[in-house]
């Protein structure tokens, strides 16, 4: 179904398939573009679409290497073009859709007849469009009747979402347009490496860098931390697992030195006395011995933020959090402290200042708003709220009592698989959990214990290769829909070419399964129609999309939610008039630092941290299939400081063994002065030997279910010495 735009326009305006920045692109079929760009077209092996950056408020025409090469994934040599069924010898055979879908439906029926509705679980992904996320949530609750759905966004945004909802009454990611950052005097980036993960973002930091106000908290001298060099700002390098201590000390300094915006705090917040006492014990000199950042540097950071704040006549300040501080067993507490700090300085709900988490996945925002989360219904409604259930049930035309209750967060869900009382069938859509989940070795075992694993994917990802049934689905340039970017901006994804082979949209697959399991009437396959239903279901919810439609987006470009009516212009900046809490005030919430779950010890004396590379994305299922990206970053490695390498007796490129309580793996050492000598870093994009998540901790934050990816105690040994000694 080619979109109207492909026939009438030379290029299709859409957005990049990867991260939450959702850079605007124009896709042009290569033959059409040949005249315009003869240098890159007309050679064998070139992708079918030419990608160009398109001017948009977020990327201003820029793209990174992943975006420029995104079209190459469309024609990956191992692209899935037909359903695949597991054969008795452990391989796969191609099958027709009817055979595959009949088999899946029969498996679901058998499991549920035997063990009840929760015998089938669903695991979604933050890369799915709003329409697909919504339909998957509805399918789980209405057709399967199962409470067990969650998604990989749990690994991404759950801590920030939990904290934002608790403190501010709302989680919209950035509650302001990204471009607002450009006018600030100070930006504090906590655990985010945007220069590598979403490079065009950096354009918005130009202003604050020119004023010397970029402050970056990262154990590594990352590409983003380097942006603070030469007077552009400050880099704070904490001991991994101690980010919360830094924040508590910053709050302490703001209160001790009277730097707070007293009028704002009095009018717009509650909880100051409790926060005061909770942070009284974190004077900078005490924090210093825990986090390794000098007391004076902590004071300077607090003072710079305060000077930039509006109450002191500054141009404004922003505090932004990323996965580096959020992926922790105290992730919610850490984000809460960041919000506390922003509230004390009077930053939130004021034009030109603010707090926001930097969403990671392409539709990590929309996914968490419209039904992929275990405890939520569309519109960011709680599934445990009777009024929310009644509203959504009326849109869905079902009895509210027929809707299941809340399920369990991702790590817990994965751990239940195949166990007594746990689900025996799992549907995975848009996730590669055997690479991306913590303690991935255990996840692989859980998947193997299932009766039926169904994976919807575009390529044979590592998780798809564990499946009994693989269903081939379309990619971004082959479908219509919407995404919600990191600033709560709803944007259009448009089709630029037909789907290859027999790849189908998830919307079609869900309708076909619904038909086989009972009633397909609630599952239209036209994305615009699905969106209209989503909009109705979200009406009155926290994430209200009811005034948005595909047609309106096509006419206006993009709209930031909430948008409660067709005449409503959308909401670029939230909280300007108050907080959506019962009393209209934000909550200052005291939090406490506890050590990481698996802290360094005699047998594992080093900190293992994980993160992303510029040239790869998430589990690498897409980017490892782009030859130029794979050539740039062909495999996993362990980044370590020369002093640590010297201590271990390891040369650059030499393979080392890493051992944690979860497991062990090997990877070559990459020696770099950009990391603390007490810490090693691994990228998490790789499968098999060197896969970082074989090592990471699946302990979770009690409030959000966020696992502790970012700090694991590890032992590192040179393989050479192991092979020398007979033991």
């Amino acid at each position, binding site marked *: 179904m080619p979109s109207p735009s492909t026939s009438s326009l030379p290029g299709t305006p859409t957005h990049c398939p990867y991260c939450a920045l959702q850079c605007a692109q124009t896709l042009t079929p290569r033959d059409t573009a040949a005249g315009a760009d003869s240098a890159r077209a007309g050679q064998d092996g070139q992708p079918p679409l030419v990608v160009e950056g398109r001017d948009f408020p977020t990327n201003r025409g820029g793209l990174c290497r992943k975006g420029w090469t995104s079209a190459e994934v469309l024609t990956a040599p191992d692209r899935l073009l037909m359903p695949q069924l597991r054969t008795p010898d452990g391989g796969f055979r191609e099958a027709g859709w009817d055979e595959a879908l009949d088999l899946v439906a029969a498996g679901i029926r058998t499991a549920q007849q035997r063990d009840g509705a929760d015998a089938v679980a669903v695991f979604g992904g933050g890369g799915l469009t709003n329409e697909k996320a919504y339909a998957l949530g509805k399918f789980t609750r209405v057709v399967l009747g199962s409470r067990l759905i969650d998604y990989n966004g749990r690994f991404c945004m759950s801590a920030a979402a939990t904290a934002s909802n608790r403190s501010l009454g709302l989680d919209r990611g950035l509650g302001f347009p990204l471009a607002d950052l450009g006018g600030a005097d100070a930006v504090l980036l906590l655990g985010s490496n945007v220069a590598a993960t979403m490079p065009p973002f950096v354009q918005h930091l130009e202003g604050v860098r020119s004023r010397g106000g970029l402050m970056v908290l990262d154990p590594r001298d990352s590409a983003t931390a380097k942006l603070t060099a030469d007077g552009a700002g400050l880099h704070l390098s904490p001991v991994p697992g101690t980010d919360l201590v830094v924040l508590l000390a910053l709050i302490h300094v703001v209160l001790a030195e009277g730097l707070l915006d007293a009028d704002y705090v009095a009018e717009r917040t509650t909880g100051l006395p409790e926060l005061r006492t909770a942070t009284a014990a974190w004077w900078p000199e005490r924090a210093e011995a825990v986090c390794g950042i000098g007391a004076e540097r902590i004071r300077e950071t607090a003072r710079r933020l305060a000077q930039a704040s509006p109450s002191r006549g500054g141009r404004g300040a922003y505090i932004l959090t990323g996965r580096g501080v959020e992926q922790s067993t105290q992730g919610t507490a850490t984000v809460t402290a960041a919000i506390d700090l922003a509230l004390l300085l009077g930053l939130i709900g004021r034009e030109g200042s603010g707090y926001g988490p930097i969403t990671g996945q392409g539709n990590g925002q929309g996914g968490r708003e419209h039904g992929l989360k275990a405890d939520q219904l569309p519109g960011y409604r709680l599934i445990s709220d009777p009024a929310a259930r009644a509203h959504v049930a009326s849109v869905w035309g079902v009895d509210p009592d027929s809707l299941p209750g809340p399920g369990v967060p991702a790590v817990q869900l994965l751990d239940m698989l195949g166990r007594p009382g746990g689900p025996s069938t799992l549907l995975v859509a848009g996730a590669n959990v055997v690479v991306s989940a913590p303690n991935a070795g255990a996840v692989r075992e859980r998947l193997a214990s299932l009766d039926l694993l169904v994976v919807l994917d575009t390529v044979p990802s590592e998780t798809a290769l564990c499946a009994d049934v693989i269903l081939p689905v379309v990619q971004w340039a082959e479908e219509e829909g919407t995404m919600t970017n990191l600033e709560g901006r709803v944007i259009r994804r448009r089709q630029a070419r037909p789907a290859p082979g027999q790849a189908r949209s998830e919307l079609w697959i869900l309708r076909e399964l619904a038909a086989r399991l009972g009633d397909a009437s609630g599952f239209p396959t036209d994305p615009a129609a699905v969106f209209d239903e989503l909009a109705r279901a979200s009406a009155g919810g926290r994430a209200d999309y009811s005034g948005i439609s595909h047609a309106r987006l096509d006419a206006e470009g993009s709209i930031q939610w909430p948008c409660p009516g067709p005449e409503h212009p959308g909401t670029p900046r939230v909280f300007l008039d108050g907080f959506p809490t019962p009393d209209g005030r934000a909550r200052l919430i005291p939090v406490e630092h506890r050590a990481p779950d698996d802290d360094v010890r005699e047998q594992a004396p080093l900190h293992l941290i994980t993160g992303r590379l510029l040239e790869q994305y998430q589990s690498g299922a897409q980017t490892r299939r782009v030859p130029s990206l794979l050539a740039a970053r062909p495999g996993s490695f362990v980044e370590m400081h020369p002093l640590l390498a010297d201590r271990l007796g390891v*040369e650059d490129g030499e393979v080392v063994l890493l051992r944690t309580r979860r497991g062990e793996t090997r990877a070559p050492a990459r020696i770099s002065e950009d990391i603390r000598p007490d810490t090693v870093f691994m990228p998490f994009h790789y499968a098999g030997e060197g896969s970082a998540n074989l090592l990471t901790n699946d302990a979770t934050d009690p409030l959000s279910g966020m696992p502790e990816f970012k700090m694991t105690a590890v032992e590192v040994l040179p393989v050479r010495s192991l092979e020398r000694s007979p033991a």
Partner: protein
Amino acid sequence: MRIVVIGHGMVGSRFAADLAREDPSAEITVLGHEDHDPYNRVQLSSVVAGKADATSLALEQADSPQVRVLRGVRAVAIDRERREVVDARGDRHPYDRLVLATGSAARIPDIPGVRIDPDPAHDGLISGVSPLKDLDDARRIIDAAGPGRRAVVLGAGVLGLEVATGLAARGMRVTLVHHRERLMERQLDPDASDITRGALERLGIVVATGVDATGITARDSRLTGVRLSDGSMHPAELMVLCTGTVPAVALAAAAGLDCEHGIVVGEDQATPKDPAIFAIGDCAQPPEGASGLVAQGWDQARRLVQAWSPALATGAAPVPAGPRGGDLVRVKAVGLALVTMGRIDRAGPSGHAPRSVRLSDPAGGRFTEVVVQDGRLVAATVIGDDEAAASLSAAFTRATPVPRDPVHLLARPLAVQGAAGTARPVTEMDDEEIVCQCNGVSKGAICQAVHAGSTNAGAVSKATRAGTGCGTCRLQIEELCTATKAAAAAGAAPDGPSREAAPVQPPPAMAAARAATAPEPADAPEPADAPSTRGGGGSSVPVSTSSATAVPEPELV
């Protein structure tokens, strides 16, 4: 279980709050003789220095119906036989377990004229003289302080240094008086003391060592001067007594419990004579000795809670001490970074001799000494380097492995250096080096594009994608355009012979792959700016290296 806590200070209040959280069956009564809520005494010197607001000192306390706090109620006796605490009103508080967290009092030296009432039981002091032990003291000191006024600070321990620098920061003319020749003699050796003295003098503080205060002068019952043992007279409107503390043991001693300097307790914080009575914080004297630091008291509180909590209990054995740091001493002085940690006589399990190296830079006001044993930092002193102080403190408390050659610890390598020097000009880069990180475009590829007719940054971006990501390299591209065109006009090739060797349009990925596989210098950075590393140190340092040359330790793997 009925638990009575005597003392509602920093340690007692935290213990009660933590125990209530961990043990829902505990019924806790806290007797605090002060009227106000617990507050952060550690920060009193920061209040005096004007760095902290007095309102920011209140500490968290138990918020639980399990905890009954009796403020302004002084315990006067422990009836061990009946297991009851008697308060000043005569009320009795039965306990199953009693925790003494009575803290300590300031030691008031015996200087003629200082006390209003010669009876040492009364703590009334002449106006203008004060210790710094509570908020009232801090307020008194601040009231007496002011630019141009004169102060004598008696005692150059940690608190004395903090108060002296704090008053100097308020513009006072400060004389710091110490009865020993060495400042902070429990922590500093003579060299470190000399450098500290120099740093204080640079802040305008007069340092008088080896002398004591022998008398005062006063007018209208207000201090006007202090006389020292060398006969000198120092006019002063304020004298702050930083002459140590005395653990509050009277209650325990009267109850027949063993008291030496403090209340004697075992590793489990219990008194040997009465297993139902425990002591934590400044009043306690544990086997390893009391440090007088709140970190030790808080760790004792944590361990006691953990040992008692049904959920956390690990068995009969005492809960091990937490992360090290009980003896980490950080001077919170304005304009003077000073931290000491550890003891060099603490032998490691292997029996390997500790290695000690030091950097001593009197003119620069810097001093760092580290002692390494079995691959861990066991002691250190840092003066005048905030970041080194921070990174060594973290390495010490977390016991993370340190570099094989301890000399590297002297030059702040443990944190990422960050924000270092200016980047090399793009014109001096090699062709293979990546200019646009976002798109992996090398300098050579950009120069090629310029040669091929892309004469400005926009055209280069279109041809190579360089500068189309984060955009931070656009200036460099512009520079390359200018330089390449200028060189071409002059008939020279600025990018050297590889221009010919380079492919017509090198795929960005190739360049990136080359860059990724190029070996990076693996050598550890030498502390090039370290002015001197000389051997030796105090007599208590058994081994030292005499130069920066690495002396390998035995392999640990």
